[in-house]
């Protein structure tokens, strides 16, 4: 059974159709890249999978491990293993990152009927993951993303990904606002999470990111549909020829 099956998905926002029958199948162990110009519906797809309010699904379905994902609340989806790394992670003043991580992890575990982590076990786990991602302890004591640099925010997303161990990771424009060094650290963090039990979907404008996170499949989106799928070579071809060729195809 595929991990994620998006079938003929149609989505509207404010009476305007953004996705016009999009289909995508992702299996465990695979890394997919979704590319496309601005406004092609990439972020909409990621938001609808994660359950962000404000989108109206008018047709099609999304199955996650065979279950109807659209019937689940966003927090239930998270507990099932859907993780979205945000393009613009929000700031939550006054809530220490450590507190946030623990509250979220325990909420997920509880929803899955697992016991909560004890404090020492939790601290050990966080420190281990944080060290791997070059995240200083001091950052964990600060408010969630408050005063974090762009790179720190993205690393914090990957820290959560590593901690929650989701089966589906969607990375929305992970490379936006990152310099080359920050990008490399973030990409290394993601690569460390590649596993036969997990699928990763990378959403990006640019081929650049795919030099660091090498995908098994590349899909090109235009005007609310997947217009072409291929392997990593497709991304390189796009880099040379641009998206314009697909505008008409859509």
């Amino acid at each position, binding site marked *: 059974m595929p991990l994620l099956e998006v079938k003929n998905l149609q989505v509207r926002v404010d009476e305007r159709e953004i996705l016009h029958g999009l289909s995508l199948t992702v299996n465990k162990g695979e890394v997919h890249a979704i590319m496309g110009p601005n406004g092609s519906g990439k972020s909409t797809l990621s938001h609808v999978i994660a359950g962000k309010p404000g989108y109206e699904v008018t047709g099609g379905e999304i199955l996650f491990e065979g279950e109807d994902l659209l019937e689940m609340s966003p927090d239930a989806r998270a507990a099932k293993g859907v993780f979205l790394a945000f393009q613009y992670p929000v700031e939550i003043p006054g*809530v220490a990152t450590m507190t946030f991580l623990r509250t979220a992890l325990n909420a997920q575990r509880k929803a899955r009927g697992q016991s909560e982590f004890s404090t020492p076990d939790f601290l050990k786990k966080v420190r281990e993951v944080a060290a791997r991602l070059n995240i200083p302890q001091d950052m964990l004591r600060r408010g969630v993303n408050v005063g974090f640099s762009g790179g720190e925010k993205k690393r914090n997303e990957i820290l959560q990904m590593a901690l929650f161990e989701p089966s589906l990771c969607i990375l929305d424009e992970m490379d936006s606002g990152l310099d080359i060094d920050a990008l490399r650290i973030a990409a290394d963090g993601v690569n460390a999470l590649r596993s036969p039990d997990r699928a990763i979907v990378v959403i990006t404008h640019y081929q650049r990111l795919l030099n660091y996170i090498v995908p098994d499949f590349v899909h090109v989106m235009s005007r609310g549909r997947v217009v072409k799928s291929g392997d990593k070579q497709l991304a390189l071809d796009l880099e040379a020829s641009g998206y314009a060729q697909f505008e008409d195809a859509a």
Partner: protein
Amino acid sequence: MPALQETVDRVRRIDVDQYRYGFETLIESDKAPKGLSEDTVRFISAKKNEPAWMLEWRLEAYRRWLTMAEPKWARVHYPKIDYQDLYYYAAPKPKKSVTSLDEIDPEILKTYEKLGIPLREIEVLEGVVRPEGERKIAVDAVFDSVSVATTFKEELKKAGVIFMPISEAIREHPELVKKYLGTVVPTSDNFFATLNSAVFSDGSFVYVPPGVRCPMELSTYFRINERNTGQFERTLIIADKGSYVSYLEGCTAPQRDENQLHAAVVELVALDDAEIKYSTVQNWYPGNSEGLGGIYNFVTKRGDCRGNHSKISWTQVETGSAITWKYPSCILRGDNSRGEFYSIAISNGHQQVDSGTKMLHLGKNTTSRIISKGIAAGVSQNTYRGLVTAHRKATGARNFTACDSLLIGDKCGAHTVPYIEAKNSSALFEHEATTSKISEDVLFYCVQRGLSQEEAVGLVVNGFVKDVLQQLPMEFAVEAQKLISISLEGSVG
């Protein structure tokens, strides 16, 4: 942070409209006849075996009250109160005069047990080992109009600290009461304070002698139990030269369909180099989701930094009451004195809050700090009203004010009304204010990480009020954190 997790669990368990303290204790009570007259005042004074001077003081206040009008400037609305339709005194009927906890009606002790208030000294007397780090707290419990129990009296006595019901202090320490009562909040101060002066029935009295650091937290729990009864408690705290005291106050009431009046007066006096820290967790019944019932909390609280280098700090967490009208203030009279006000005011459902502080800079080099966090949800209205003034002679006065409001949903309102007056050109007053809404993006971020909507709101709000929570003594901070989440129950769709 386990407290947070507990908050989250609790929120998940409770239903809307469930006020945790809404039970009623069935006991016989001794009431004054309904209505207010000189006879009512005499009745109360006689019940308390008060000396003649006290009765005179009350009667003078009563006569003054007859000439006064209810204040109308606050941003709160309620039907006219019929002051003749209230009981001004209700006491649990004692079988005889009470000298120890064992003689108190077990029903009352049970009530306090339900509220989680440790009245029993027995465990201490019998040497029960308490968990490490848990501090002792002396408690004065006020049930309707009467103080029913004060704990740790002996231990405090050794340190020279007087902590007793004010009715007892009037009899046992008349010189102290006479010297300080009404010197911070005069009997003529305002409609509700004047009413209180006439009919106050009990409350706490604290005197900390020179140079003494009070060995434990002092605490009073107020409980309104009787129907149609106003509660008018009076608290007087005096910190003599170089002393320190931390005082906590908690309030609850049963759930009732009618509104009940609570008009308390609190007076604090800090002499040279003394410090008073006064913390309140106010959780009077706020009324139901239709806005029916709830307490009218019309309270006058004021501290006088009478001595040089004295300090008074107010911390309040206000989650209850149908209407709150309350401005704990500091008169910074002594040179180099300091006043602080830290407040969290939460309104949900149909609650109306008009609260804030006054910092009156009279002495030289006086400083004050105001941190106010207002959170409005439901169809509630939440107003911060503050006054900061520098007297002509208040050279070097400094104030910093930060008022932040957070809105949850789109049917509530937050208002900030600061008054700033500097009559001395060297005064430096800073005022910052923000109003924000819990954004959909922040909530979605949290739920994407596995938190439910309500857990997410609880988390964001607790983060918003963190600066103030940190000011509370630890035990109260945990309690307050729980309250905050409970009172926001059902605030998101």
